[in-house]
């Protein structure tokens, strides 16, 4: 059990976006969260990654509570994420974006940076090398020097994954990684996600592309109006009437 | 010009803040300086040497003043007149002391000429405006005669106002006067009723409004509006007909000590300053279509002093300096200057006249 939430809750003014949600993610699992638009999936991600403080409840990561931690602390503990609306650093090159991901795993501080001590220089080299590896891993190795804005949308998504991977997470949160990809590209993505899991990283996935979700998830949780309406294996979820009614729709 | 050009011109530097927040000071100074240059050269120059003024803008900014002073020194001026404000003057003083060159400042603060640490006059520095302490003494003297023992002071937050505030507080005990309310206002303040309301709530018997800013007219107006009837004294910074015009009825009957520029025509024919003042006033007002102020007069005195020194001792800075330092009975717009090694301002209490506003015009105050 790598992540466990109990009764987490988030309200915006009068609107209850997530209400008393309990769920568990096990080590090395690919777990998907699906649900209608506005069900609260992104909000759950925001709560886990500390971008929004929960209104109530508790989140435990690797047995320790991370409920009130700031998002940078959570990230250095080993939770990393991508964003539904891609949030790349547009004033930096592609590789620098990935190098940012190394931030929590490196240590040279202001003083050693200002004085450019040998330790810092060695670390810089190392960071660049590692960043390049992650870029190659997602297949962007040849575009390392470009501005991320010049990349097509789908490649920007891959870059976000590389950046998140660079923080060496234990748990990776992917928010709609396949949106804007065509079927073939989505297949490549699912291969990539499986490979990431193969490296021992647990994955929590939000996605509307059912081919992808059903194809790779070990377990699926369905949210509606901030509440869990179903949880189980892909096959069970596909046949769940409530899920069909609220989300999948009948053909 | 005639044969004047044959000899090498004498260069004198001028530092005036003719743009920026003190431009209403620097502008009349600049105009006056240009007038003098013209006048001296028309009269055949100084011992045949034409006078050449190098006028630089200091923008009311000490840093700009420093650079401008260095520029002037580099261009080989024999002396510098200005800067317009105390702050700028203080910034230029060390440069002149180091370069051992004459500076005749047009700003009022006493620290410009007097080094408080050594308690001596600074060797190369002179100034032409009246001492604040004299103005204060004049006001307090008048109050004492009128039986006023409790005053409220309201001063602006420029260097001018701050100096006044300091002197007002310093000299009060000497005259048996208590400062029971001490208010200030900024250059761009628009409403001073809070300050005056506070004063109204005290037992003050008179108000001293010490400022050089247009905002001082707001004090006068707000005072009428609040129905405050105790006498209002102004500083010599009120010496500007535009202020009197702006304050309108609110200015009627205020009392303030000032040099004699503003009341030149009321002076006795035999008064030593009369000729100079009338000539200056006429020339200035016909040329610029606006009333003369005391500020231009400071520049006039400073330049005349330097010109006189040049005339007497030629372009030798040491001789010029000792000429000025020992000059007695020098007639200026600000008064009769009597310099000495212990007094680089040269003006006494007698240089001031008590003035008032009568029907919108400055007049001698008679009791």
């Amino acid at each position, binding site marked *: 059990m790598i992540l466990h939430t109990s009764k987490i809750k988030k309200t915006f003014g009068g609107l209850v976006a997530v209400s008393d949600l309990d769920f568990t993610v096990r080590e090395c699992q690919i777990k998907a969260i699906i649900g209608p638009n506005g069900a609260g999936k992104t909000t759950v991600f925001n709560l886990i990654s500390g971008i929004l403080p929960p209104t109530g409840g508790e989140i435990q990561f690797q047995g320790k509570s991370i409920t009130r931690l700031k998002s940078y602390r959570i990230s250095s503990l080993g939770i990393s994420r991508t964003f539904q609306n891609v949030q790349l650093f547009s004033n930096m090159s592609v590789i620098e974006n990935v190098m940012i991901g190394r931030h929590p795993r490196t240590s040279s501080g202001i003083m050693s940076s200002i004085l450019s001590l040998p330790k810092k220089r060695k670390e810089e080299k190392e960071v660049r090398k590692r960043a390049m590896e992650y870029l190659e891993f997602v297949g962007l190795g040849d575009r390392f020097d470009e501005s991320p804005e010049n990349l097509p949308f789908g490649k920007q998504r891959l870059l976000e994954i590389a950046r998140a991977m660079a923080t060496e997470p234990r748990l990776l949160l992917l928010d709609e990684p396949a949106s804007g990809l065509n079927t073939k590209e989505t297949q490549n993505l699912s291969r990539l996600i499986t490979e990431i899991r193969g490296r021992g990283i647990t994955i929590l996935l939000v996605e509307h592309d059912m081919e992808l979700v059903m194809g790779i998830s070990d377990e699926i949780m369905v949210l509606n109006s901030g509440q869990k309406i179903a949880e189980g294996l892909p096959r069970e979820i596909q046949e769940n009437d409530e899920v069909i009614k609220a989300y999948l729709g009948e053909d | 010009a005639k044969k004047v050009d044959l000899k090498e011109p004498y260069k004198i530097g001028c530092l005036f803040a*003719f*743009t*920026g*927040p003190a*431009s*209403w000071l620097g*502008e009349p100074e600049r105009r006056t300086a240009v007038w003098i240059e013209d006048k001296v050269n028309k009269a055949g120059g100084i011992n045949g040497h034409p006078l050449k003024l190098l006028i630089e803008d200091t923008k009311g900014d000490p840093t700009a003043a420093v650079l401008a002073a260095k520029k002037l020194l580099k261009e080989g001026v024999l002396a510098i007149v200005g800067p317009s404000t105390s702050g700028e003057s203080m910034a230029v003083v060390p440069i002149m002391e180091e370069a051992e060159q004459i500076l005749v400042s047009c700003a009022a603060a006493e620290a410009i000429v007097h080094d408080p640490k050594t308690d001596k006059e600074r060797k190369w520095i002179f100034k032409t405006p009246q001492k604040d302490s004299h103005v204060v003494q004049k006001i307090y003297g008048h109050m004492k005669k009128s039986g006023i023992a409790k005053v409220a002071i309201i001063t602006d*937050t420029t260097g001018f106002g701050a100096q006044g505030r300091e002197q007002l507080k310093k000299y009060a005990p000497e005259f048996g006067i208590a400062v029971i309310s001490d*208010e*200030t*206002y*900024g250059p*761009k303040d*628009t*409403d001073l*009723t*809070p*300050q005056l*309301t*506070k004063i*109204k*709530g005290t037992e003050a018997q008179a108000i001293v409004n010490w400022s050089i800013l*247009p*905002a001082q*007219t*707001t004090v006068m*107006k*707000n005072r*009428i*509006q*609040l*129905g405050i009837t105790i006498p209002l004294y102004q500083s010599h910074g009120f010496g500007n007909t*535009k202020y009197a*015009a*702006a304050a309108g009825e609110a200015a009627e009957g205020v009392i303030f000590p000032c040099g004699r520029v503003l009341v030149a025509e009321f002076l006795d024919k035999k008064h030593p300053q009369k000729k100079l003042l009338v000539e200056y006033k006429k020339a200035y007002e016909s040329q610029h279509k*606006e009333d003369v102020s005391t500020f231009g007069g400071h520049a006039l005195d400073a330049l005349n002093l330097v010109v006189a020194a040049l005339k007497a001792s030629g372009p030798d800075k040491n001789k010029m300096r000792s000429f000025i330092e020992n000059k007695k009975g020098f007639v200026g717009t600000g008064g009769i200057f009597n310099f000495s090694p212990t007094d680089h301002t040269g003006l006494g209490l007698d240089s001031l006249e008590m003035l008032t506003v009568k029907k919108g015009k400055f007049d001698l105050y008679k009791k």
Partner: protein
Amino acid sequence: MPLYSQIIQYVLSGITIGSVYAIIALGFNIIYNSTSIINFAQGEFVMLGGLTMIFFTVMLKFPLVIGFPLTVLVLTLIGIIMERFAISPIKKPTVVTLIIVTIAVSILFKGIAMLVWGKDTHFLPPFSGEKGIAFMGASLNPQYIWVVGITVVVVVLLSVFFKYTIIGKAMTACAVNRTAASLMGINVKRMVLLSFALSAAIGGIAGIIITPITLMSYDNGAILGLKGFGAAVLGGLGNFYGAIFAGLLLGVMESLGAGLVHSGYKDAIALLVLLLVLFIKPSGIFGVTEASGFKKF
């Protein structure tokens, strides 16, 4: 003077100074609402309004009722010229470049005003005399009633314009996302032009009505702009009622500060209140937190 009527006087003075700040803040908000630009030349519009009015009514001796609309017209033109020659030529505007551009324009306006009107402080007679009006033991300058009255009218008209008219809403849309706005068939350039014309006109009105109180000289724009900006931010950028409330609050804080603490610190006291409010409510008193989050610097 008893303390309570002193305090009434402070509050009254504060309200009147505050409405000066408020009306200047309105100008900031108009341009901000349609372009998300903070126009640091807004204070200059006020200065130019005052001086133009002086030109018409004091120098040319036009009556008030003619000088007023004429001045507003001149200012509208100035706003249009500024937009055409300084704002619209900027190809890829960022917030910071625009700040610098508007500051550069304000320097330019200042320079021009100095050349045209000289360096003196100019005076404009109040619209209806200056005899104080007694009010609960305090006294009120009649010009203040003009300021407060006209401010109220302007605010009401503006908020109706932005809230209920489609042009007003379209102006707001331009500020949010120009591409999307043009996809709605909105002529973005014209909207920006309109907002500059409008806020220059309002700046002009502000200049006209406050000059009898504040006097006017070529270098007054910056400080007036600063106070207006403070009020606009404190009230929540873009919010008209916020601007009024914040303007009055700043005015009253200043006035109470001057009266009860010390006049030298009155601006510091008002600014301190402003800072404390922002620290507690980072998007101003009436600002929408979510909405401010969308705007990136």
